[in-house]
């Protein structure tokens, strides 16, 4: 098992991760080393990987496995951390190895090794089979694996324009220093900024006859700006409203064509992010928050920006429709789900209002979930989770399809490293935009008493995903169709079904963009995954808002 470190840093807007840290896999290496042709995994071409994979497939079979899959992975990470005028840390990490999963005696077994040589692979395959056989004594039902026709020798690459790993570190530091400088010039007392880049080079082979070579890229630029009023003993922060993306460095081009205009000088970013502009706005807004009016608790109509709503979708639709949670596999950690099989079977469970159409996919361009094939060799696709407000499906992988009476997997199996075992992970889960033409300006005009919320803030939901509470980065009071000023101390509390049934209006496809979670945690030992959630700005009527201000 590889070393897995956590970088502990304060002031980071870290996603749904339970610990306040950033996971790092593998060994620290120099930036240049990541492209060194002599790097552990770099020089190994698909033909050589096929030979190594076949060692595992053949050994496992000879030991009695009835199914085997092999993942040879090289995982690259580059993380940059800065505060004000200083570079705090630059992490360049590489992790290379092989994970072998088998079914023997109707039971899963898994083993992994960083020693990617034929002898070590054969030993590892034997270990996987022996673990399967040992655990089969405790099992009551054999694994039922949905069939998957082999796809032969194929490749898939994230269609990036600029490989972030080939951009010089100095250029990245220059950008972050500019971000920090503009934030400070515009009134920030403190600022931290970060860039995260991930490249997964994954080779998958299985006894179904698939040999899949994939090259996957992800990027996340983010920052936190703090404003401080020392005399009053007060401080406020504003995090970036960027989104992590399944893109290359081109996401940071800041193209005007990808900016979506919103009220009060706010800007939404679609497939291109202007980090310096956002930091400038953030500093001004953090200062404004110091004197913003404290919210009067009560019922409000909420106008939720996609950069905020994404997390609500993630928590209240994404997680409860994970079939492993529904079945009880996560009962001791993340929990189970209110979206039980009987509700799905009834075909009448009103998850939301008729406007609510939520799809799962691993195919949307530029998103975190998008790949060609999942980590058990299933081609990726799109499917409905909620159709016209009704719960119609779940997120299922090959060993779960039979439970739903399905003949194939949805293709959403993932492992965060070669050393970890793949399991069901959330695909992109997105709310479809409305068919009627409508901008956020149009939507706000129709609201008498409301709050416009932008950005991800505090978030918490129970272990079956009924009761939630969400904050945000920016809150604006809406009165009689107009924004009248900034609010503070806002959080809304609701119940998942009640909330989605209060969904009253949607903006159209021109307002649609994705939010993302870069380090979503699940499983024991915990694994991370990255997932996007698309939506247009959406209105929810009569939601309970509380005031979170306190004195200590």
């Amino acid at each position, binding site marked *: *098992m590889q070393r897995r470190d956590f970088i502990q840093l304060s002031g980071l807007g870290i996603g749904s991760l339970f610990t306040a840290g950033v996971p790092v896999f593998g060994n620290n290496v120099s930036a240049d080393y990541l492209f060194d042709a002599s790097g552990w995994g770099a020089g190994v071409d698909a033909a050589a990987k096929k030979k190594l994979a076949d060692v595992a497939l053949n050994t496992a079979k000879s030991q009695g496995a009835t199914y085997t899959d092999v993942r040879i992975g090289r995982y690259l990470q580059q993380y940059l951390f800065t505060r004000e005028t200083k570079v705090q840390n630059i992490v360049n990490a590489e992790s290379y190895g092989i994970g072998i999963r088998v079914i023997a005696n109707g039971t899963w077994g898994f083993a992994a090794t960083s020693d990617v040589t034929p002898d070590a692979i054969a030993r590892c395959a034997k270990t996987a089979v022996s673990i399967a056989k040992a655990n089969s004594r405790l099992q009551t039902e054999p694994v039922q694996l949905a069939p998957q026709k082999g796809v032969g020798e194929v490749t898939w690459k994230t269609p990036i324009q600029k490989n972030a790993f080939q951009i010089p570190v100095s250029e990245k530091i220059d950008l972050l220093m500019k971000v920090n400088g503009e934030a400070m010039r515009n009134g920030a007392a403190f600022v931290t900024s970060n860039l995260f880049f991930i490249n997964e080079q994954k080779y998958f082979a299985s006894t179904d006859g698939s040999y899949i070579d994939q090259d996957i890229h992800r990027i996340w630029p983010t920052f936190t700006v703090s404003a401080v009023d020392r005399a009053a003993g007060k401080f406020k922060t504003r995090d970036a409203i960027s989104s992590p993306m399944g893109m290359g460095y081109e996401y940071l081009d800041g193209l005007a064509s990808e900016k979506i205009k919103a009220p009060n000088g706010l800007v939404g970013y679609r497939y291109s992010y202007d980090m310096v502009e956002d930091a400038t706005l953030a500093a001004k807004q953090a200062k404004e928050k110091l004197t913003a009016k404290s919210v009067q608790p009560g019922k409000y109509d909420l106008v939720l920006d996609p950069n905020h709503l994404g997390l609500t979708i993630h928590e209240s639709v994404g997680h409860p429709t994970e079939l492993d949670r529904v079945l*009880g596999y996560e009962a001791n950690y993340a929990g189970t789900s209110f979206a039980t099989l009987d509700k799905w079977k009834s075909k009448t469970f009103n998850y939301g209002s008729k406007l609510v159409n939520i799809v799962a996919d691993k195919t949307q361009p530029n998103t975190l979930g998008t790949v060609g094939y999942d980590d058990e060799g299933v081609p990726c696709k799109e499917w409905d989770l909620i159709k016209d407000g009704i719960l119609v499906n779940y997120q299922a992988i090959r060993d779960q399809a039979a439970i739903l009476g399905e003949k194939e997997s949805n293709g959403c199996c993932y492992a965060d490293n070669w050393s970890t075992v793949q399991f069901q992970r959330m695909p992109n889960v997105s709310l479809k935009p409305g068919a009627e033409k409508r901008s956020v300006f149009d939507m706000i005009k129709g609201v008498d008493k409301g709050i416009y919320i932008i950005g991800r803030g505090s978030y918490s939901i129970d272990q079956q995903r009924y009761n939630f509470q969400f904050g945000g980065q920016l809150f604006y009071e809406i009165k009689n169709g107009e924004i009248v000023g900034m609010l503070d101390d806002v959080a809304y509390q609701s119940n998942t079904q009640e909330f989605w049934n209060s969904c009253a209006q949607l903006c159209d496809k021109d307002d649609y963009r994705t939010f993302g979670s870069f380090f979503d945690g699940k499983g024991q030992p915990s694994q991370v995954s990255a997932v996007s959630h698309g939506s247009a700005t959406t209105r929810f009527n009569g939601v309970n808002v509380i005031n979170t201000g306190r004195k200590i």
Partner: protein
Amino acid sequence: MSILTKDEAKKIIDKALSYAKADETSVNLSGGRTGNIRYARNAVSTSGEGTNLSMSITAVFGKRAGTATLNEFDDASIEKTVRRAEEVARLAPENPEYVPMLGPQTYLPADPYSENTAKIDPDFRAKATFNSLDPCRKKNLTAAGYMEDSTRFTAIGNTKGLTAYNRETSVEFSITVRTADGTGSGYATRDVTDVSKLSTKDATEIAMQKAMASTNARALEPGKYTVILEPAALLSNVDASLMAAMMNGLDARNAEEGRSFMSKKGGTTRLGDKLFDERVTIYSDPTNLEVPAAAFGGGGGGGRFGGGGSDGRPQEKITWIEKGVVKNLSYSRYWAEKKGVKAVPPPANFIMEGGTQSLADMIKSTEKGILVTRFWYIRTVDPQTLLYTGLTRDGTFYIENGQIKFPVKNFRFNESPVIMLNNLEALGKPVRMGGNLIPPMKIRDFTFTSLSDAV
């Protein structure tokens, strides 16, 4: 062999340091073995074991530092890695906050290691799991649990003459038991240094009782209640928690920069202020036999609160809060030097003083209140006041006239540990939780803001 002895480790570290040409060089050698077994729906779902041994070498020129890592230990590989660290250091941006490495230090005689834990094998894990599964199967209850054991060491050394070694073992176990119809759920968690002190059966039986007793929960109106918070509700291995939030917030720099709950009007801090009830006393001590911790920070020897970093600062017995008064804040070495104070590292463990009452005694002395097994999905709402939100989970009960009357539906809370530790009614006998000692607490006016249907 992934657990090296002090002498074996020192030999490798000295070899690496003998190749060093930078102004300063430090070496961190760590390794160990972790094993785990996970079960759900009354059957094992995953199980694994892995070992690692790796060394990281940091070279420093002036204020430029570079790090390189290796996991092969022949002389040529070691020398190559030292050179690589030096190359990286020359290319690195200057860190204006760099503080030169420490020389030799004196450490307390801590040894958080148990041979019983180091000897755990797959058969032991299977047996421990059977002891938890079997009683659940017999009562038609559904078990989901996880056990992870770890045996590891960390050794550090540098060209200034600092040398340190720690070996450490730990086992964490958690179990959630649900009734077959899903209307009741109970939880228990344990962590130990010495696995002979862990009974998966005993912990499972508590979770079973809670599961069976929590069916048909009644709804109470949200509002302010007297609560008895069990230790697992105050501190968690797998989530944020009220007590960890407070202990993690005792950082001097954030406080002095005006962006912490420890910051005060006018730009000063609350250091020296009486911020909590006078019964609140919290200290750290790596030599405590119930919660032993490394005598220095960093790597495999570091505590879950960050330890002292890999800089080799000693972990000492230190009081953070005494009779409600904030006595100490932790410092980075840079900030301490700038302020001209001692560089107190963040702690590797903490011990909160309590009373002698058991949980049962605390329930007996409660007229009206709510017993909370644990909280879940705990997140910061306002860092200024340390306001947190989260929900009760896996066993929440109404107490009246000293007796548990009936299970209640789960609540969402919005509360600050600062307010909570002012509204203190009683403290029970401290128990180990996540490598720390923490007493169950009775708190008045704890704020529940809404109800949840979750079981």
